[in-house]
């Protein structure tokens, strides 16, 4: 009798985790389909899908109740939680470089200031590079004269 109760507790806890994970996956998928902008879609995917997959895999590990399977499940969850933000950052940086359009209600003030600053810095660095080239040329010319 005691063994059966433990089995039932495992099944109920696993069911709760799996249903929570599936609900998160469904919400993130609806966000992918309905949101207006690439960047907002990206944020919906990265957070919701990572949490959903983590909860489903945790329910799997609780159901089997063995140490090696729990270790594998924790390895998958750690890997997903490390790599999902990296992949999202790489793809969104690529989209910014390719001038992917923003939503018209997005507040772009800080981004434009940052871009202006970056552009000015690039021009300044370009001038400084030219000056360095000139100053490098001058001593060589002086050496030729002597």
């Amino acid at each position, binding site marked *: 009798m005691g063994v059966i109760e433990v089995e039932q507790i495992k*099944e109920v806890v*696993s*069911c709760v985790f*799996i*249903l929570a*994970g*599936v*609900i998160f*996956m*469904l919400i*993130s*998928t*609806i966000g*992918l*389909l309905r949101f207006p902008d*690439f960047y907002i*879609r*990206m944020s919906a*995917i990265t957070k919701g*899908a*990572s949490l*959903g*997959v983590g909860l*489903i*895999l945790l*329910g*799997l590990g609780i*159901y*089997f109740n*063995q140490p090696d*399977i729990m270790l*594998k*499940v924790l*390895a*998958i969850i750690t*890997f*997903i939680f490390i*790599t*999902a933000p*990296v*992949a999202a950052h*790489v*793809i*969104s*940086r*690529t*989209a910014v*470089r*390719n001038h*992917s359009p923003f939503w018209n209600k997005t507040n772009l003030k800080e981004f434009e200031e940052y871009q202006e600053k970056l552009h000015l810095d690039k021009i300044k660095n370009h001038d400084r590079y030219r000056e360095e080239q000139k100053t490098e040329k001058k001593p060589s010319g002086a050496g030729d004269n002597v």
Partner: protein
Amino acid sequence: MSLFQITLTIAMAVLSLCLLLTAIRFAIGPTLPDRITAFDLIVANVIGIIAIYTEFTGNEDFIDVAIILSVFGFLGSVTFAYYIMKINV
């Protein structure tokens, strides 16, 4: 049919619906980065489906498939992102 199996069936059905909606976004995505994110979500959905299938059958060997799939999903999305950066700049 116990409550546990009913829950697993519902979860499998909802994940299949998620795959269908993601395929719609994959088809109508205006730009290539949209399709890459849709591909990322497809990989996550398939990992979830593999986990639920493992609980259905009770066979523990399918978890290794989920490990490999998570690795290859990350590699695929990063590789596509670098590919787009190289062809458009």
